[in-house]
């Protein structure tokens, strides 16, 4: 009786979410896997079945895809250490009650609250060669020789966009870490202090282990975010992604294939590959971070 009651409860609790999710999310997304097997312009209902041809072309004959993927990895490769080092440093400082902590937190999170479109437009003016904030700043401190058209130069275009992405999202990670740190009982730090631990030691031996689950969450989120990045890059580079595809990422490429080049089936195949890659990266990082959660 009790058992049946419980089963009914489970069904009742899950049903709304499962139904909505299945119909309005999984069903359209699953269709994507199916569409990936076709040559389809995405302009009418005419499709031609081509099997795995799209995947073969993508993985074996498409240098732009690999270039785009490598740019996503640059996003991840730069963001990850910055988020872990700067993010943890700042959130640790804020959690230890520095002066103005709550104000800083509010400020840092704010970029995350603005629309991506607005952020992108704002920053493309920061990087403007002639009147942008950055070059004017360099000029003001006498480093004018380094002033350049940041978004046009092959060597600076991608890093410039990565910087915006970090500027935009770092606050999120800081608040996330901070939430975790604040849930660590102060008595733990007091005990560490009694043992004569330095800041670094208590950070290393108290904060990090107790924060582990949150760190995992942050890393997964970062992986998803950097491999899925689209809006910022798209608006900053006007969707053109620069000479020689300098800022092309998987999704900007997907977007162009699907919507400009009417290569919808192929674009969908790219989407499927991107999905699998993100899943793979997420699983790998989970595996790497596997560790027994510390209970307290």
């Amino acid at each position, binding site marked *: 009786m009790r058992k049946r*009651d*419980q089963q009914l*409860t489970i069904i009742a*609790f*899950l049903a*709304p*979410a*499962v139904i*909505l*999710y299945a*119909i*309005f*999310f*999984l*069903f*359209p*997304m699953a*269709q*994507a896997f199916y569409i990936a097997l076709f040559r389809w312009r*995405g302009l009418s209902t005419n499709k031609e079945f081509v099997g795995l041809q799209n995947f073969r072309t993508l993985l074996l004959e498409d240098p732009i895809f690999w270039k785009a993927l490598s740019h996503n990895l640059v996003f991840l490769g730069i963001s990850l250490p910055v988020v872990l080092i700067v993010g943890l*440093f*700042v959130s640790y400082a804020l959690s230890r009650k520095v*002066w103005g902590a*709550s104000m*800083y937190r*509010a*400020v*840092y*999170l704010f970029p995350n*609250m*603005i*629309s991506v*479109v*607005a952020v992108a*437009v*704002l920053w493309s*003016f920061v990087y403007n060669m002639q*009147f942008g*904030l950055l070059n*004017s700043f360099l000029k003001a401190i006498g480093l004018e020789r380094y002033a350049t058209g940041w978004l046009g130069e092959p060597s600076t275009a991608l890093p410039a966009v990565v910087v915006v992405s970090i*500027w935009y999202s770092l606050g999120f990670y800081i608040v996330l870490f*901070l*939430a975790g740190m*604040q*849930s*660590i*009982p102060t008595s733990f730090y007091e005990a560490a202090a*009694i043992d004569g631990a330095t800041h670094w030691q208590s950070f290393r031996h108290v904060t990090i282990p107790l924060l582990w*689950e949150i760190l995992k969450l942050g890393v997964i989120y970062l992986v*998803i975010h950097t491999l*899925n990045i*689209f809006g910022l890059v798209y608006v900053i580079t006007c969707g053109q992604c620069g000479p020689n595809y300098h800022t092309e990422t998987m*999704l900007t490429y997907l977007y162009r294939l699907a919507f400009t080049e009417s290569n*919808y089936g192929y674009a969908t195949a790219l*989407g499927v590959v991107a*999905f699998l890659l*993100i*899943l793979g990266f*997420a699983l790998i990082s989970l595996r790497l971070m596997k560790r027994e959660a510390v209970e*307290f």
Partner: protein
Amino acid sequence: MGIKRGGSQNKLKKILILIPVEVILIAYAIIVVYPMIWLISVSLKTSYEIFTNPWLPTLKPQWQNFIDAWQRAEIGRCFFNSVIVTSISMFFILLIGSIAAYALARFVFRGREIVHTAFISGMMFPVFLGIVPLYLLLSRLNMLDNYFGLITAYVAFSLSFTIFVLTGFFKTLPYELAEAGLIDGCSHFSVFWRIMLPLAKPGLITAGIFNFFGIWNEYPLALVIISSNELRTLPLGIANLLMVEHYETNWGVLFAGLVIVMIPTLIVYLFFQRQITEGLTAGALKG
């Protein structure tokens, strides 16, 4: 603490550590805030002045920019639309998401892992991959160009993240309480509603905040689902303004539009800031 060891020396050391830390924190705050202050300053200039005098505050502020932006993007109506869409979506996301997350975290049953994985993996899916199929589906159900369709899509698309966050929170809750409630004769739902949900408040707040801003700023889904100008949400309105001004080369108006959009966001944000703090404190007290 209690034990004193070279008190004044310790204090000095503390200050020596604190000063560089404060400097770094302030520098970071400036990097975040300064572009926005610059934005406000250029939003009061003509395009000509933006190019010729990007730095100093203008002597002839162009308040007209704000009037133009307000009127052209119909910010007032867009704002109202966004409030309605976002708040209704949030309500359903949190309600549906939390009961599902509770079931996934609390009970052991066959197929649990599959359901959980299905939800979580949704986070990794590029959104616009499903946009055309979704459009066809909504049009078959007559859910295009109205809020019902948009909200349904938002709820469905946000469940992944919400369930991901909330399952984590529910897992850490002490279930002895729930058992006690059941023995007392409460139904599963009232145990969830009266006992477990209040305990998961920090999780709800975390999920709620990120969903709020996610939906508040959402663009691609709104673009394909909404086509009437009267139903435009804020991101649609501002994107429209941006693109029109880009063709007409009115950067001043464009920047004024950005400022107008940012101000309510800032106010909402400052208002929620207290909620966040409370939620986090509650989180710190749990367990």
